[in-house]
């Protein structure tokens, strides 16, 4: 019984903790962030089974975790509000070639990261994008502007 409760508590704790630190942390980890996050299983592993190294304890822990993951995903699908609570929602970082400073500051996304994504998409300038979104999985997606809109935006920027 104790193991089921331990796993459920740690699952809940990690769900809240990871939600609090934000989705950006999982999109692009620096080596230091990666190493730091890898410490989490190291720290919680002992608390999960509490010195019980039997196979029974391991199976109870794993099945409890699998059921919790399934339950969370089923609830998030069935109730979108719950899904938004556990996974968050996408954030708009740029619109019509203009960076949205507030959103970028909130999500801790730097202009350099947007520039990097632009290059990955084979684009050169910010004016070529219609929207830049930080998705719930931490990745950044770019929606290109239509060609004529990009030209207008570029011309507008070049005007004195």
């Amino acid at each position, binding site marked *: *019984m104790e193991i*089921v409760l331990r796993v459920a508590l740690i699952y809940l704790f990690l769900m809240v903790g990871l939600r609090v630190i934000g989705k950006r942390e999982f999109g692009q980890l620096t080596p230091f962030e990666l190493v730091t996050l890898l410490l989490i299983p190291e720290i919680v592993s002992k608390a999960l089974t509490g010195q019980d190294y*039997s196979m029974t304890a391991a199976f*109870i822990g794993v099945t409890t975790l699998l059921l919790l993951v399934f339950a969370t995903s*089923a609830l998030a*699908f069935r109730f979108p509000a719950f899904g938004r609570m556990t996974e968050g*929602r996408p954030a708009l970082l740029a619109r019509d070639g203009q960076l949205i400073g507030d959103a970028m500051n909130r999500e801790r996304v730097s202009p350099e990261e947007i520039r990097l994504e632009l290059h990955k998409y084979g684009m050169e300038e910010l004016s070529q994008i219609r929207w830049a979104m930080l998705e719930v999985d931490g990745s950044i997606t770019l929606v290109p502007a239509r060609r004529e809109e990009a030209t207008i935006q570029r011309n507008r920027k070049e005007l004195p």
Partner: protein
Amino acid sequence: MDDAERAKQEDGPPTVPDIDRRVHLYPLQVVGLTVLAVLPLLALLGLLDQKLAVEVRATPTLEVQVEHPTRIRTTRETSMRVEMRNRSGEPLEGVYVRLPDDRLRGFAVTRLVPGVSAVGRIDLPPLEPGEARVVRIGLKAERIGWHPDSIRIVSAAGDDLSIPLRSFILP
């Protein structure tokens, strides 16, 4: 505010229309989830936890109470408690506890209080009338499966009690 309103207000990309959301499972998934739920359920009901049982045997002169594990997980440590009480009006001498083959099947003996006098034998000082003494045997579950066993308590007054022990060691 739903996602569509929010997207409109932020002038973000349009959202896709929602569906009537229901959680539908494949029949095999239902079976799989049910099977997965068995272990946590048994654990929540306490059916996979350690269980102790108490056996009591008595003669006109000696009463013995043994508390031992009947269910335990492998690698876990526990202890067996053997309490002997002199029921007669005379001091009871030559009382000892005997473990078969110096150990119990399926377990490793990690600790004995008081210590052994001979291999597999724990001798006790004379028991005064009404006096009780306790022997504690530290055990570590080692071998998976059913392990029927027994422990003997003997006294110089002719008492010879054999108490059956039956332990199940979970994987």
